[in-house]
Each structure stands twice: as structure tokens, then as C-alpha cells.
């Protein structure tokens, strides 16, 4: 059985955030980068800050929180956004 990679985020400690026009503006202090995040990315970050997850686990928690069906499309979206978040440094391997 393949062990899925676990991800975590200390987003809340390191970021100054501001909600604007339904999106989240984020200033990430360690990298000095500014991000504009649209749903479901802010929710994903909150969940990972609460507790680490692998991609599938995160998808399950996210779909619960947003009250949306947990299907293949949701899994693909979460996996893709997770890759973006790792690349940007907002999320790292636990």
C-alpha cells in the first residue's frame, strides 16, 4: 500500500490576510509574496492549519465543510490546488 504524502500549513501564523470582493488577499511574510486566493483555496488552507491531511483526506474534509459532493472532479481540483500551494510555499510536506 502506498503511503500518501501528508501536508500541513502554518498559514495563519505567517500571513496577513484580508477579505476583498469574495476572495482572500494574503501577504505571506516569510516569502514576501502576495496572493489572491479564491474558494476553495482559503478553506483548504484553514483545514490544513487545523490538522495535517493527505490529498484524499483533505478533499473529504473540504467537501464536508463546503457541503458539496465528494466526486472525482473534487479530488482532481484539490490535488491540483494542493500542488500550487506547495509550489508557492503556503503548504509543505508534514
Amino acid at each position, binding site marked *: 500500500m502506498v503511503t500518501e504524502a501528508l501536508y500541513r500549513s502554518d498559514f495563519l501564523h505567517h500571513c496577513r490576510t*484580508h477579505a*476583498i*470582493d469574495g476572495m482572500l488577499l494574503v*501577504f505571506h511574510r516569510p516569502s514576501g509574496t502576495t496572493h*489572491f486566493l479564491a474558494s476553495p483555496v482559503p478553506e483548504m488552507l484553514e483545514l490544513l492549519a487545523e490538522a495535517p491531511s493527505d490529498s484524499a483526506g483533505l478533499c473529504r474534509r473540504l467537501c464536508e465543510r463546503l457541503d458539496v459532493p465528494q466526486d472525482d472532479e473534487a479530488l482532481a481540483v484539490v490535488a491540483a490546488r494542493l500542488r500550487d500551494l506547495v509550489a508557492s510555499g503556503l503548504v509543505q510536506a508534514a
Partner: protein
Amino acid sequence: MHEIKLRVGTISYRVASPWLAPVAALRRLYAGYPAPEDGIATVTARIGPPARWRRWIRPQVGIEGDHSLPDTVPMALRHALLAAEMAMNMQVALGERRHLLLHASAVERGGKALIMPGESGSGKSTLAALLGEAGWRLMADEFVMIDLASGMALPFPRAISLKNSAIAEMVGRIADPGRFGPQLSATPKGELRHLRPNADAISRMDEPAVPALILFPSFGFEAASEGVSRSELFMRLTEGSTNYVALGLPGFEALLRLAQSVPSARFAYPDSDSGIAIVEQFCAEAGI
């Protein structure tokens, strides 16, 4: 080396050149500008030959100074004044760290600033020049500085770059030919002529203003306009700032404050008169 020292707003410049003519041209263009603060120039802009022999043989003018970019293409000696202006811009664009820089023109009326961000060709410089002769005070044509603590707009009234058709327009409206620099032909930006801001703009270069309206102009299209949302304004302002990233969190806070509190719109206009009319209409609505 020949040099000129002058102050423009918060920037105390020394501009140096191995050729005399560009420095003489700068002296004429910036007649009436104050000396550097405390007599100390803290920013050096230079023009110079990229190779020693290029000073004399088919001379080329490179843009240099405290800060420089490796890929700038050297210019012909007859365009040295333009190169000097670009060198002066480059020092601010690359070196300014105490104020948030917006790539925009700005004019002031009643203590309130109208800020017009845009790239070359958007018409921001020409509109500012026209407004500056029609009851507004010119604050800047290229860079507007935003104080990080107070959010106020600070003047940076350099000589205005007029391009192509804008030259004739302004020559027609301004009685004093001494305010114009030489006509530069076939520059990388086309026909170009510099215009010194009027005496009012120069004497009030230390007077800040409250940002009250941000308008994004697009010259050369049928008249049209629409509002700009706060999120779009934030994004477009970061794109137009050369030092936003380098300022870190204070830059973020200052830009956010602007995006939250200043109304913004974009507009297109076919000619100067309709451009000015649209601007005045927006200003009336914004209470400027």
C-alpha cells in the same frame, strides 16, 4: 565629468555626463528647480559611453547610475537628454524604498489628488500636462509616491515627456517656449519633447495631497468608461508599482488602504478634449 544637482520632491539628484551638451540641456529644462536638500545629492544618475571609444567615435549613450539594469540599449548622442531622463527615472524605479511607487501621473486640486496609472501610450502624461495648465497643479507625470504611514500622495514633478501628437497640442497651449526642451526625433519612443511643469507645480513640490480618485486612461478609442472593483484595483496597482514587492508588509498595507478607500474607474477616449471632459465628470462625482 559635467554634472547638475537638483531636487525634485523627495529626490536630491546628481546627474553626471562626460558630454557637456546634455547637462546644459538639463540645466535649461530644470531652470528654477531647487538645489538638493542640505546641498547633498544622494541619488546619482549617469549617462556614459558603453565602451571608452564610444565617447568620441559614433558616440553611444548608456543609461547608468547608482542602480542600473544590464540590458538597456545605448542611445545616440543626439538623444542624450532622453537618456539622462531615463537614467533619472531608473534610479527612482530601482532604488526608492521609503515610499510606495505608482507608475502614474497625478494632478491636485483642493488638496485632493487624481492619480492616473498607465503604461506608455495610455495618455496619462498628456492628460496630466493638459490638466496642469487648466487649473490643476501637476504633481507627477511618471511616478507618484505614496507615503507608507499616512497614505498621502507626494509630488515628484519631473519634466513631462510629450510624445508625437501631444507635442503640438501642448506647444499650442503654452505661451512660454522656454518651458520646452529640444525636439528629439526618431527616438525609441518616437518624436519626443520635454515640458517643464509650471511655476506653481515647482514651488509646491513639497505639498502632499490626499488620493481621491484613480482613473486608468486608454487613449485612442471611442469614449467609454466603467468602474473598477477593489480587487481589480489592488491587482492593477501592484502591476504598476516597481517597488511594491520590495516594500514587504508596509507596502501591502499601503496598497490595500488605497484600494479600499479610493474610488476607481477606467475610461477610453479618442482625443484630448473628450478625455478632459470625462475626467472632469468623474471628478465632479468624486467631489474633487
